């Protein structure tokens, strides 16, 4: 894909595909980048994704702590609900979500999207974080408390650093989900074109440019970039975290 984006149009449409571009060109990237709204949609996607992931992490961390470390009535029921919530039929909720967004004046706003993405990733985040948290020996926290830390202090100074890879892995999955989301972004943002996100923009790309595959490929490549970059940087931690979380979850 990245290679194709570098090819001149004539080469893309050659009868015999060439693997490497004969005359590399940045023309398609220029087309994609200079397409109307490119910067705005990037900013929107980053904002929505970042905010929802942070929110989900924070809320899930609290819940995961309660589930993994404390005993309380309703704990099992809560966990079962979280498991079930993973199956939530999100696409089926498009219409009520639309109605709710309209009734609360959140239609066409990025806030609503952020909230929806927060909720779609939350159950998964809780389940995985619980797995990671269970893997950190509780004795470490207890030792810190014997040394005079309060419970929140012990958590912040001992457990949280040990949890870092887990938090990274989990947030990355949340990031991918929110970064990719298409149906809600397509439904909840209607009039305000300036609030559209990248997936919607990308899916409309082929129409905007006819069959300009070069530009489409370039756009898709740019769209993948942040996820791939983070993945490459964090790869070891993510793979380890993934398996740990999955086995536990």
């Amino acid at each position: 894909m990245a290679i194709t984006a570098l090819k001149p149009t004539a080469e893309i449409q050659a009868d015999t595909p060439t693997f490497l571009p004969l005359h590399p060109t940045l023309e398609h990237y220029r087309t994609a980048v200079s397409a109307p709204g490119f910067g705005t949609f990037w900013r929107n996607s980053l904002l929505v994704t970042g905010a929802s992931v942070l929110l989900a992490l924070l809320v899930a961390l609290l819940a995961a702590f309660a589930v993994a470390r404390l005993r309380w009535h309703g704990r099992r029921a809560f966990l079962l609900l979280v498991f079930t919530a993973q199956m939530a039929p999100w696409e089926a909720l498009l219409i009520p979500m639309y109605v709710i967004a309209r009734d609360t004046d959140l239609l066409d706003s990025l806030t609503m999207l952020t909230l929806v993405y927060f909720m779609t990733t939350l159950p998964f985040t809780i389940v995985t974080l619980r797995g990671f948290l269970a893997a950190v020996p509780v004795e470490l926290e207890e030792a810190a408390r014997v040394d005079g830390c309060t419970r929140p202090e012990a958590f912040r100074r001992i457990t949280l650093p040990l949890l870092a890879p887990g938090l990274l892995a989990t947030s990355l999955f949340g990031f991918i989900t929110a970064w990719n989301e298409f149906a809600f972004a397509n439904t909840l943002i209607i009039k305000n074109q300036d609030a559209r996100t990248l997936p919607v923009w990308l899916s409309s790309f082929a129409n905007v440019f006819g069959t300009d595959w070069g530009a489409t490929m370039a756009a898709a490549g740019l769209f993948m970039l942040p996820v791939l970059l983070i993945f490459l940087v964090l790869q070891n931690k993510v793979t380890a975290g993934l398996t740990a979380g999955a086995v536990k979850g």
Partner: protein
Amino acid sequence: MPTAAPTARPPIRSRVGPYLLVAPTVVGAAFLLLYPLARNLLISFQHFRMAELIRGGAPWVGIANYTEVLDDPEFWRVVRRTLAWTALNTVLITVLGTLTALLLIRLGRRMRLAVMSALVLTWATPVIAATTVFQWLFQSRFGVVNWVLDQLGLHGFRDYAWFAHEDATFAVLVALIVWQSVPFAALTLYGGLTTIPNELYESARLDGAGPWQTFRLVTFPVLRPLFALVTSLEVIWTFKCFAQIWVVSQGGPNSATTTLPVYAFQIAQSLHKYDLGSAVSTLTVLILLTALVATLRRMHRQEAEENP
């Protein structure tokens, strides 16, 4: 842990503490999941079309929407198609994922890292980007797939319009979903495989078990819970899958790729029959829940055993 000291009455803080910690989750779920679900249910019992969406005040129609949906033969065709779609994808993903995991565990360190990186990259590829790439690969005129097939001597595929044929579009979409989902299954199962002690394999070998027997008698039983988890997640994901189908084919051609989520979306967004759309999505939820009752019960039992 609080349970460690059951003698004294725990201080008030540690008794309400857990509830405060889960409160944001509960509030979030109530407003963003349960309320929409309830709203969806409500709409499915109302006459709720374009006019009601704008004006509000939808009249109650009882089960009329459900009878209309259930009487429509198209609905049943879509249900059958969705079940076939889910089954086909899940089987392919599980089998290919298992094979990849078994391959991973046999590879040398360096090759393993390479394959794993490829898997992780595939997995990280955003759905819409991957979908775009597939659309491009299967283009009729300049698509790489047709070119390769042509070069292999299958000249019938020259300029073959994949997205104009029903089965072909279906096949392309299955390939796309499987390609995107195998990494998760493979990496999870690989993680499980690494936890199996080598002694089990050695004793199986001593007993003269072949590769297939070893898998059936050692690997599979040990990983049974993990297999159950992966399969049920894949069932959920492929059953609910929407974006890929919508972007590639919008359910076409001739509704050959219309699965339940796509069907509900078409009815609601394109025909503006929000009430019927809601009824279809309620039915979708019910079908999915029925299919997964066994899994839920197993989870509940497991949870009960771990934390009595």
